[in-house]
């Protein structure tokens, strides 16, 4: 949206940033889920490493499983690191402006919505940040490539008819969504 | 020589004997069962099912196996199926027919009453296993599927893919697990029984070695059950598991249990041949292959040589230069002659120098003509009138694949040959031992309180076992026979109280076992255990195998005795007694095989008749249509040889159990 129309992006952002349902209900749920996912994921990872005390001298993981599936902790931690950056870039300033300074208008002093302007500002002329963003989304993609279909298996859904479809959808989702974000970062970097 | 009492109840017709026995047998009060301990050694189909059932009845069971889990007992390797007189296919099967087939298949050397009981309980086994969750094959209507097996005229064989033994064993294992969880079975994995302890003339316990720590332990009980399988590994190479052994049975024999028909061994015709001297075991392929495969060797010596040196491929040998020896010798049955006949004929050709692999011990099993036959049939069905030769082969291969695909894959995995393109190579191998510890109708050995079940005993298969009958017998003994018969004995033991392991008998037995172990690890000889085992196997195979004669057997007796003497002087066992020491385990087992082997030869020498799988060269038909075929001698040899131990195998004393056939008329087997 930010690529297509600055106004549209601003409107949607303002809606999401001030709507009580989004802010009061969905945001905490999302934050809780994400935190739960991290904590639980890392706890399980800890258990998993404990389950083999002596490591193999020779272990050919690539012979039987994809890199993505074997390295969820790496892609996951990378995404976590990205989230920290993202929070630092956007979320903390947002919270600061909205809830600490109490400015719910979402406007710049000149009367325009600030969201698009801030977004562009973060990327334009910031090659390191843009690279980090791009890299993070590649990691997210890898995480989702395994994670999407894996979640179905974990809750007990595995069906000879539907599982192949889920895997395909998962692959599309896992590539398309991060790719979209990558485009945002790249467009703003190159366009400004 | 004396005769022995088999305790078969008299006075009722055969078909009512077991029912009437069950009605009248002494039962043990449930409250008293709690005070009775039973040791079960071996956790295959027989031992596993017995342990589970006895525990369920309320006895305290201690079960032992040398494997790391009861689930790994060698019953697991049985492929084909299990017989049961269910008559689900409506093809005229009945208890009587199964009974008749089994007695006839055993060449009239099994005990009628036991076999009839086996046939009676067979149907119940299937019900039981289905209730336990054994996934037998089913048809599209959801009902159980059957197949015909081993040349019988009815379809009575139930199967679970090619893994019937595995599934039945896992069923018994699950029943055991349920009782282990309830605390009614105490399970001892990786424990090997090394002696049975007799107190006041009764079996009261065993001595075991913990295979992991080497500890020698005493275990007491009111009765001891041996479900320890067969002794085919006396031949070194067999289809048995590497650990399969005779030790438990042999120790019982040395303590007073008679050993019956040791020379009765089944040699299976369709095994994958040995590829070199390093070979450690042989792999069986289902007999069903003979339904479509044609067996042959080259008819000319020069072709044999060319094949052995690799300059000629079997497919290049013209039809007229092939010797389809089974079809030639047995036009009526051809490639479907019984196991013993097929095995002997293969060995005869190979001994005559026509064997087709580097070792000279292999014959071809060829599917080329079956592929063409099925291919033509399919072309007709599909309306392809002018199908090319390659198209016909393609269609035919599909059918063969559907029927035998898993066997072909297994063959390819082991030999790296593609049996769709080139004939398979097969050779007979030792597969099952019909002989075993002598038991009466109650499955009790001649040691009071010591029972033998499954392949470890001798009773049901006579001189030759039919396909899909071993699984049936193991489960019948364990689930349905022993749990009744053992009560008759234990009902006299309810006031005995716990058996102490501090008695001098236990102490002496433990001392002897320990002494033996110490001897092995301290001997520091020059030859490995396998060196002796291989030598023994070679003597057994050459002189006590499919075809035997007096001279060879006498030589075998001397050679084995000499080999045994050498073993006790020069065997070398590395490591210590108090650790996990596989060489030490083997040493103990081979020591017993070296004694059993001699008794085996002695028994074969005594049996101057050809019967079942055993061809005695002095006992052949002369003249007439059966000229040169095996001649059974019912007049002189319709008995069970039960050997009593007297210090060493050469001095074993023969007791005869005369076999009576009330229901069945003795007939000559003819496959011409």
């Amino acid at each position, binding site marked *: 949206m930010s690529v297509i129309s600055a106004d549209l992006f601003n409107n949607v952002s303002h809606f999401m940033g001030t709507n009580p349902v989004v802010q009061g209900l969905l945001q905490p749920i999302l934050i809780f889920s994400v935190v739960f996912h991290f904590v639980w994921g890392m706890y399980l990872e800890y258990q998993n490493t404990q389950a083999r005390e002596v*490591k193999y001298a020779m272990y050919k993981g690539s012979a039987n499983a994809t890199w993505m599936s074997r390295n969820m902790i790496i892609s996951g931690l990378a995404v976590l690191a990205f989230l920290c950056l993202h929070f630092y870039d956007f979320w903390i300033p947002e919270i600061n402006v909205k809830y600490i300074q109490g400015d719910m208008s979402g406007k710049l002093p000149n009367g325009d919505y600030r969201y698009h302007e801030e977004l562009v500002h973060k990327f334009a002329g910031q090659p390191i940040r843009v690279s980090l963003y791009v890299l993070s989304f590649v990691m997210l993609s890898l995480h989702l490539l395994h994670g999407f279909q894996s979640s179905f298996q*974990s809750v*007990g859904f595995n069906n000879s008819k539907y599982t192949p479809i889920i895997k395909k959808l998962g692959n599309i989702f896992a590539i398309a969504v991060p790719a979209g974000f990558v485009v945002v970062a790249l467009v703003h970097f190159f366009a400004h | 020589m004396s005769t022995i009492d088999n305790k078969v109840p008299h006075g009722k017709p055969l078909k009512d004997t077991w029912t009437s026995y069950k009605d009248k047998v002494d039962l043990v009060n449930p409250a008293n069962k709690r005070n009775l301990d039973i040791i079960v050694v071996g956790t295959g189909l027989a031992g596993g099912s017995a342990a589970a059932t006895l525990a369920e009845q309320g006895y305290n069971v201690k079960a032992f196996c040398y494997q790391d889990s*009861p689930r790994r007992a060698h019953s697991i390797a049985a492929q084909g199926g299990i017989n049961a007189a269910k008559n689900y296919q409506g093809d005229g099967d009945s208890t009587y027919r199964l009974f008749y087939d089994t007695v006839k298949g055993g060449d009239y050397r099994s005990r009628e009453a036991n076999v009839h009981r086996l046939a009676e309980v067979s149907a119940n086994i299937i019900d039981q296993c289905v209730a336990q969750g054994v996934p037998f094959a*089913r048809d599209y*209507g959801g009902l159980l599927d059957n197949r015909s097996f081993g040349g019988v005229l009815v379809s009575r064989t139930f199967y679970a893919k090619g893994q019937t033994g595995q599934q039945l064993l896992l069923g018994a294992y699950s029943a055991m697990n349920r009782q282990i969880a309830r605390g009614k079975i105490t399970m001892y994995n990786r424990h090997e029984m090394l002696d049975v302890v007799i107190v006041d003339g009764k079996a009261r316990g065993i001595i075991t070695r913990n295979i*992991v720590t080497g500890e020698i332990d005493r275990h007491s009980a009111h009765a001891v059950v041996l479900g320890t399988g067969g002794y085919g590994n006396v031949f070194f190479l067999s289809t048995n598991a590497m650990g399969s052994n005779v030790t438990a049975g042999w120790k019982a024999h040395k303590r007073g249990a008679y050993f019956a028909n040791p020379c009765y061994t089944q040699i299976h015709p369709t095994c994958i041949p040995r590829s070199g001297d390093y070979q450690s075991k042989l792999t069986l392929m289902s007999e069903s292959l003979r339904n479509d495969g044609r067996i042959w060797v080259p008819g000319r010596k020069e072709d044999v040589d060319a094949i052995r040196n690799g300059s000629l491929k079997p497919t290049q040998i013209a039809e007229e230069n092939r010797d389809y020896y089974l079809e030639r010798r047995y036009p009526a049955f051809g490639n479907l002659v019984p196991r013993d006949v097929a095995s002997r004929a293969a060995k005869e050709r190979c001994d005559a120098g026509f064997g087709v692999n580097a070792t000279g011990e292999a014959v071809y099993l060829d599917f080329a003509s079956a592929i063409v036959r099925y291919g033509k049939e399919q072309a007709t069905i599909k309306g392809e009138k002018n199908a090319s030769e390659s198209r016909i082969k393609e269609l035919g291969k599909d059918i063969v694949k559907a029927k035998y695909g898993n066997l072909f894959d297994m063959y390819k995995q082991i030999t790296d040959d593609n049996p769709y393109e080139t004939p398979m190579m097969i050779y007979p191998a030792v597969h099952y031992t019909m002989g075993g510890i002598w038991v009466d109708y109650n499955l009790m050995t001649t040691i009071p309180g010591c029972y033998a079940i499954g392949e470890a005993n001798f009773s049901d298969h006579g001189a030759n076992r039919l396909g899909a009958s071993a699984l049936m017998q193991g489960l019948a003994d364990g689930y349905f026979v022993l749990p009744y018969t053992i009560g008759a004995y234990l009902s006299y033991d309810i006031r005995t109280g716990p058996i102490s392991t501090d008695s001098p008998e236990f102490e002496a037995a433990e001392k002897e076992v320990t002494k033996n172990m110490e001897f092995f690890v301290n001997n520091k000889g020059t030859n490995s255990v396998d060196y002796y085992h291989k030598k023994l196997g070679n003597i057994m195979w050459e002189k006590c195998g499919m075809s035997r004669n007096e001279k060879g057997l006498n030589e075998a007796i001397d050679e084995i005795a000499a080999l045994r003497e050498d073993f006790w002087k020069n065997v070398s066992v590395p*490591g210590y007694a108090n650790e996990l020491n596989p060489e030490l385990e083997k040493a103990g087992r081979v020591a017993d095989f070296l004694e059993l082997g001699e008794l085996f030869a002695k028994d074969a020498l005594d049996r101057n008749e050809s019967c079942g799988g055993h061809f005695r060269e002095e006992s052949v038909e002369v003249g007439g249509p059966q000229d040169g075929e095996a001649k059974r001698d019912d007049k002189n040899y319709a008995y069970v040889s039960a050997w009593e131990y007297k210090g060493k195998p050469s001095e074993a004393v023969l007791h005869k159990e005369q076999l009576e056939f009330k229901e069945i008329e003795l007939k000559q087997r003819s496959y011409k």
Partner: protein
Amino acid sequence: MKDMNLTLKIWRQKGANDKGKMIDYQVAGISEHMSFLEMMDVLNEQLINSGDSPVAFDHDCREGICGSCSMFINGEAHGPVKGTTTCQLHMRSFKDGDTIYIEPFRAKAFPVLKDLVVDRSSFDRIQRSGGFISVNTSGNTQDANALPIPKQDADLAMDAAACIGCGACVATCKNSSAMLFVGAKISQYALLPQGQVESKTRAQNMVAQMDAEGFGNCTNTGACEVECPKGIDLSNIARMNREFLGGSLKG
């Protein structure tokens, strides 16, 4: 057809409480027709004859069904060939001059007893916690054909029941998870009407025992399915999860 000379790097460990390490051995004259275990026999004969202690390893049927053999060969459970146990692996899968790593199946729940021998009794304990149908073996059951079972279900149950309990799934899983093994047993019974009755509690009990044994968790890498010598399908784990969740939600 030339005989092979090989370098073997084998884990040697004297006993359960000793420290182990990889040791190099040379074997010569190995035929391509030998099975992997026969190659090990050659090595052991060589070690015995030179007064060394032979390598202990579990093996029994040597026809791929008992599930005893348990070697981790060149980084893979049961070696490089798929759908195969170690005993059915043949030396033709290797080349003259190769170096072969041979290690025990490793997991906290499979402690090493000696060299390549591990203790898999944790599997037995899981089975004991619920891997059965609670039916008496008295023989007073209904007729086997009284309850038709759809062929598809029976076949799926058979596929799940083909598990030989070797532990390759655990050994190969980066998390040492036993879910394929447990899932297979739960599935076999869940698919059959006889086992359906106690299916949910069975799943609860077996999973609890599995966790207590110290196996890791499933992250659905699918390695177990690939390395399983009997081709047990990953869908069995999903079925276990389903039965387990169903059991968790039940009052």
